[in-house]
């Protein structure tokens, strides 16, 4: 999804890896790639919601932290408007900070239990000089809260434990709205809030896209949520992007065995079409391991071939904009051309 650089690209990560050293009892040094050569770009105009789907341990939170500039990648580049984030000067850094904002997973843990929830808003208003006076700050706060369907009187002056998870999470949306960022990186924002109020959150994120032109990266383990948000989607498996494309393309023609299994395994809210009645691929849950020169999914893959455990698969183009990192497609589909990179 790395379109050539153009002026609508806000955040662009190229070939990013994050490698951790795992302590072992022996002398052998073991490394794990939490994120393994991932490239992805987020654009403005038109604003879009990109979904990143992956299960726990797929490296999606690490990727989010890298994109937010909270963790430096081990390899690869994080570019904000074409410039390396780690080398941004003071003005550039504040511009980046203001325009790339997160929503975290835990609606309660995000608030310091010591303070009232609206401190999160005050802190943002103060540090980014959004208001000239106290009154202005207050009306800004109230306006932002109303924009996310909260009544200011229900929220201002309350402590986090006095609000529900859904309310807490929407206060976070209000906080990002104060800054009108170009990009919101939402890491599993609805996984810890009640099902009945998830829709409110997701709809607000959709409104942000339509009303304020805010693009989002929606990180989720739930394909159904990703489908609801629409837009392009990347499937992450053990730190690597195994398939990417528009969500409709991926659903119509899931081309990586991991995506296929994922689709087969998610419970569907329709009791007339159960797992046992759906056409099923044989599912195993053998543990996966990180190894450089093979496909990450080879241990579980029902179609594994010998090449899969000797070579890392490149991206094959299934159709325009739809890529799968799987050797099953080597005979019928061209390898994706990777644009030559500036050193």
């Amino acid at each position, binding site marked *: 999804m790395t379109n050539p650089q153009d002026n609508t690209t806000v955040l662009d990560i190229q070939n990013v890896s994050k490698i951790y050293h795992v302590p072992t009892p022996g002398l052998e040094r073991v490394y794990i790639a939490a994120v393994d050569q991932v490239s992805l770009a987020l654009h403005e105009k038109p604003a879009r919601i990109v979904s990143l789907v992956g299960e726990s341990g797929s490296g999606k939170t690490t990727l989010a932290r890298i994109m*937010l500039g*909270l963790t430096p990648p081990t390899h690869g580049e994080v570019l904000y408007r074409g410039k390396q984030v780690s080398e941004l000067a003071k003005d550039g850094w*504040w511009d980046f*900070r203001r325009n790339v*904002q*997160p929503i*975290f997973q*835990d609606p309660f*843990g*995000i*608030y*310091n*239990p*010591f303070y009232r929830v609206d401190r*999160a808003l005050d*802190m*943002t208003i103060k*540090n*980014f000089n959004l208001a000239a006076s106290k009154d202005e700050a207050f009306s800004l706060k109230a306006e932002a809260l109303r924009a996310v369907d909260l009544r200011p009187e229900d929220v201002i002056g309350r402590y986090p434990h006095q609000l529900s998870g859904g309310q807490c999470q929407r206060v976070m949306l209000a*906080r990002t709205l104060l800054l009108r960022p170009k990009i919101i990186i939402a890491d599993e924002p609805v996984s810890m809030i009640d099902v009945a109020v998830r829709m409110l959150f997701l709809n607000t994120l959709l409104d942000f896209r339509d009303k304020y032109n805010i693009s989002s990266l929606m990180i989720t383990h739930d394909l159904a949520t990703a489908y609801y948000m629409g837009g392009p989607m990347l499937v992450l498996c053990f730190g690597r992007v195994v398939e990417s494309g528009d969500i409709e393309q991926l659903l119509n023609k899931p081309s990586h065995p991991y995506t296929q299994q994922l689709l087969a395994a998610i419970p569907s809210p329709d009791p007339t079409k159960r797992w046992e009645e759906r056409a099923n691929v044989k599912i195993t849950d053998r543990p996966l391991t990180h190894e450089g020169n093979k496909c990450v999914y080879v241990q579980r893959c029902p179609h594994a071939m010998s090449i899969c455990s000797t070579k890392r698969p490149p991206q094959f183009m299934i159709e325009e904009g739809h890529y799968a990192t799987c050797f099953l497609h080597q005979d019928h589909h061209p390898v994706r051309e990777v644009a030559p990179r500036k050193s």
Partner: protein
Amino acid sequence: MLSFLKNCWRASGKFKFGVIVLTFFILLAVVAPLLYRPIIGNLSPARPGVFGRWIPPSAKHPLGTDGHGRDLLTDYLAGLRTTLYIGFLAGVIASGVGIMVGFLSAYKGGWVDSVLLTITNMLIVIPSYPILVAIAMVTPELGVASMSIILAIFSWPFSARTIRAQVMTMKERPYVELAKVSGQGDWAIIFTEILPNLTPYLLMGFAFSVVGAMVAEVGIEAIGLGPSNIITLGLMINFANGWGVYSMGRLEVLLIPVSALVLIFMAITMINRGMEEYLNPRLQKVTTEK
């Protein structure tokens, strides 16, 4: 901090008990001179031979006198006063050093952390009691302050370790990340995000240091290695031993300082448990379904 203490009070009976008992002893220590001045006048409570030996309890000497011709009530009150004083002074010094070292170690990381952690761990594994005994033997004229400092040297590593561990986990808390992306600076994060949440641990570290210092002090005094120019509860235990109160049938002379110490340790431990219970809901009996 106040609201934290208030919540502990409300949540835990142990905490309540500890606070009541400890407050009683502290008050007693504070008003002690008012109680013993009428008996001994302006003399030092430690001065021997002021009265006759082993005078039975009377109006003038509510608990009688001891084997050195001193008023027993005065002994206990003065002893309580010094013991608490040494404990708290050592506690303050130890937690002060502990906080600084713990914070520096956790927040700076890298080689600073390695060096400080090594020193801390070394002090923890050194058996402090024999060393205290050795120090006490070569310096017979120990004052209250120098005694506190020596005790503090061996108890700060514990609070440093606790603080370090807490700062390490708090550095990774989501609200610290939120503060970062909201443009808060490093110092603002330390003082407004991390430090307030650390108060309970600071208080707990302090309480541990106090108990540690008092136990060590009593131990040294009880085996007769402490300074004899100041009266402490530990010294009273030592004296009681020397006088042979068992054969005299005056067991209460030993039991009073021992039970006072037991109550004080219990109170502080209960306060600590109460705070822990409040902080760690798993220990709490009162839970509600989320």
